[in-house]
């Protein structure tokens, strides 16, 4: 299922949950793990100065420094790496999202695993007016599925039993569905197909009665059956549900209800992300809130 995994990490506690998932998955699937760290953002015009993301210090980057950082990463993940895991470590300078995508272009992984937010994106070192969050940019443009692990994934110890696939019936969702089915088959999981009926538009004053909502739920269920059930039958077990509410909240609630170990969703290709709409989309909100890893598929 996964032969090459690219794990983009800040090599700080913010990426610890993701690290656990990345290392476990690599072991489980005998995948080659590429540990990738963007150590800092270039600064000072054309000068050689880089602001180190970890120390916040302005440093002159040379081979010695790169070597030092690589050694630090090795030490940080020593408890995983000691077990003879097939891995490589790469370190780069630049804007994280762009460099992760550049690395993905070269390494061609089957999956990118992203660590959690370092929490300091407001830090001036990261500021670039057109930039959205690292996650948003990587999820939008990555050539392969992207898995984000933001909160501790308690049940994710290499095994998976429940996968939730959230759909909005778009073309990209169909791609995400294909992937979810493939995954469920490979991992022998139950797949839960879910659609959240968005009723947030109703807050603006207009109240629809429950009959109408339920009518829409029935319609959505019919749509799920028509669109996905033939493929779902290839699996041992599956379920289909539609709930109404604020979509990302409903997805998170549903995931909790089904003890989902993984959520698969489509990332909608949008134009160059706006600084205002970072973490604005459903996928991003789900990532922030879900108690399990979230995998986004964009193409």
């Amino acid at each position, binding site marked *: 299922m996964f032969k090459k995994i690219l794990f983009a990490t800040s090599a700080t506690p913010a990426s610890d949950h993701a690290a656990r998932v990345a290392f476990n998955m690599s072991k489980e699937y005998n995948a080659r793990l590429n540990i990738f760290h963007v150590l800092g953002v*270039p*600064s*000072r*015009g*054309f*000068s*050689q*100065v880089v602001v180190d993301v970890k120390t916040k210090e302005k440093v*002159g980057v*040379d*081979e*010695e*420094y790169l070597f030092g950082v690589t050694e630090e990463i090795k030490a940080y993940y020593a408890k995983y790496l000691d077990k003879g895991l097939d891995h490589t470590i790469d370190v780069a300078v*630049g*804007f994280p999202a*762009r460099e992760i*995508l550049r690395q993905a*272009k070269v390494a061609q992984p089957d999956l990118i695993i992203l660590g959690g937010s370092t929490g300091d994106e407001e830090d*001036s*070192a990261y*500021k*670039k*007016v*057109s930039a959205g969050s690292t996650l948003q940019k990587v999820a939008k*443009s990555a050539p392969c599925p992207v898995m984000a692990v933001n909160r501790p994934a308690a049940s994710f110890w290499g095994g998976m039993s429940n996968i939730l696939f959230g759909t909005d019936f*778009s*073309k990209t969702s169909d791609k995400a569905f294909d992937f979810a089915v493939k995954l469920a088959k490979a991992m022998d999981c139950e797949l839960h197909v879910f659609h959240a009926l968005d009723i947030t538009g109703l807050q603006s004053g207009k109240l629809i009665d429950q009959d109408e909502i339920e009518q829409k739920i029935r319609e959505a269920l019919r749509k799920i059956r028509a669109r996905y059930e033939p493929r779902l039958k290839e699996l041992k077990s599956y379920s289909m549900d539609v709930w109404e509410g604020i979509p990302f909240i409903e997805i998170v609630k549903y995931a909790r209800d089904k003890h989902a170990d993984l959520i698969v969703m489509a990332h909608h*290709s*949008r*134009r*160059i992300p*706006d*600084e205002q709409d970072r973490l604005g989309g459903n996928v991003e909100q789900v990532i922030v809130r879900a108690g399990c890893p979230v995998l986004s598929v964009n*193409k």
Partner: protein
Amino acid sequence: MPEGIYCNKQTVNTPEEVNKLLSDTSGNLYYQEMEVLDVDTDLLWKTIQNTCKSRTRTWLEICAHCGMCADSCFLYEVNGRNPKQVPAYKIQSTLGEIIKRKGQVDNAFMRHAMRVAWAECTCCNRCGMYCPHGIDTGIMFGYLRGLLYGQGFVPWELKIGAGMHRAYRAQMDVTDEEFVDTFEWMVEEYEEDYPGLTVPVDKEGADIMYTVNAREVKHYPEDLAEAAILFHLAGENWTVPSKGWEQTSLAMFAGDWAACKMQVESVYAAMERLTPKRMVGTECGHAHRATVIEGPYWAGRKDGQPPAPSIHYVEWLAEALNTGKLKIDPSKRIKEPVTLQDSCNYIRNHGLKKATRDIMAHIVEPGFFIEMAPNKEHNYCCGGGGGFNGIGKFRKERNIALIKKRDQILETGAKLVVAPCHNCWDAIRDLEEEYEIGIRWSFLKPLLIKMVVIPDHLKPKE
């Protein structure tokens, strides 16, 4: 020690030599060696005799020491009106003195001259506008930098920068293959959103040949995508050269005259090879100065013009908006107080103030654009021009230099600064980092992308 291992009079010509210089972190050894670097006084005097022309000699001679240039210099103003920061003093006590002494100056003098040439003047040429005799100190400092470079007295980063141009014909270690590859990659990333988006490489006879700044390729390749998108939406017949794509010239900041010539000739060769109707350069100030204004003279072109008519990005954009090739969605215009940074290199030195103001009129809701004071050709340098931004040794001085721009921006009350110049953009970014005044800053392309109308036939199908 006459010549150091890192600091010497030799030029840096190959990737290996660039790497060697880079391996000396922050140039620590480089500057140590500089303290004992010999001055070849004979060579210095010979160079002056061969290259110091009547204009410079006349300027140095006729300066009346009236001091009118003092108040025109932002570095004089932000450095406590120190008389040693008066432009006339700065040039007379360095270049003037070298000539007066017929090149008989010592190591300490040259190091002092280096500090003045790179930390006390950004070659913004503002003083030249206020001198009753029309003496342009910035031009003379450009010349002095050349003399200093020839003797090995040049800031470490600029020796590297000039070396990059010699080794790669680009200001950073970006090869021609990497340039084309990155541009194609970026276009690929966005072609789903903009069906039909392509980057035509080496197309002959196109209406536009586009040239860039290597930093865009290296660190902000989105800029390339944005340029492609805007040309695409405007329906332009454009191309990029696979060779000669770098418009900038750190060699100019360094005073490496030979590298300046090499660099600009690579761009001119691309123009001659592809015969575009026009060249459009990216949002960079010094790149325009190097390739369009000064370059023709470096390359020895008799008419003082590049081989193809060459315009700045703001000229193309203003034209595209004025002629309706690009249309702005009025609901998406900027509706917050916004100000504009006038880049010295193409506003004061090439008169493009109308172009940028035309653009602002299109993209900003009436009433929200606030001019800095002073503005247009009278505007102050961002504080980081002429190479100042990148020099670690003069960081402290550079940060003081940012104060003028900081105060100008604060006075406007705007929280968004449009800066269509790489150097200005950097300086304003650093200014926020240093002084935290709560502003955002942007090139034009990312702003335009958000508000430009996509013609129906170019919209994605879904």
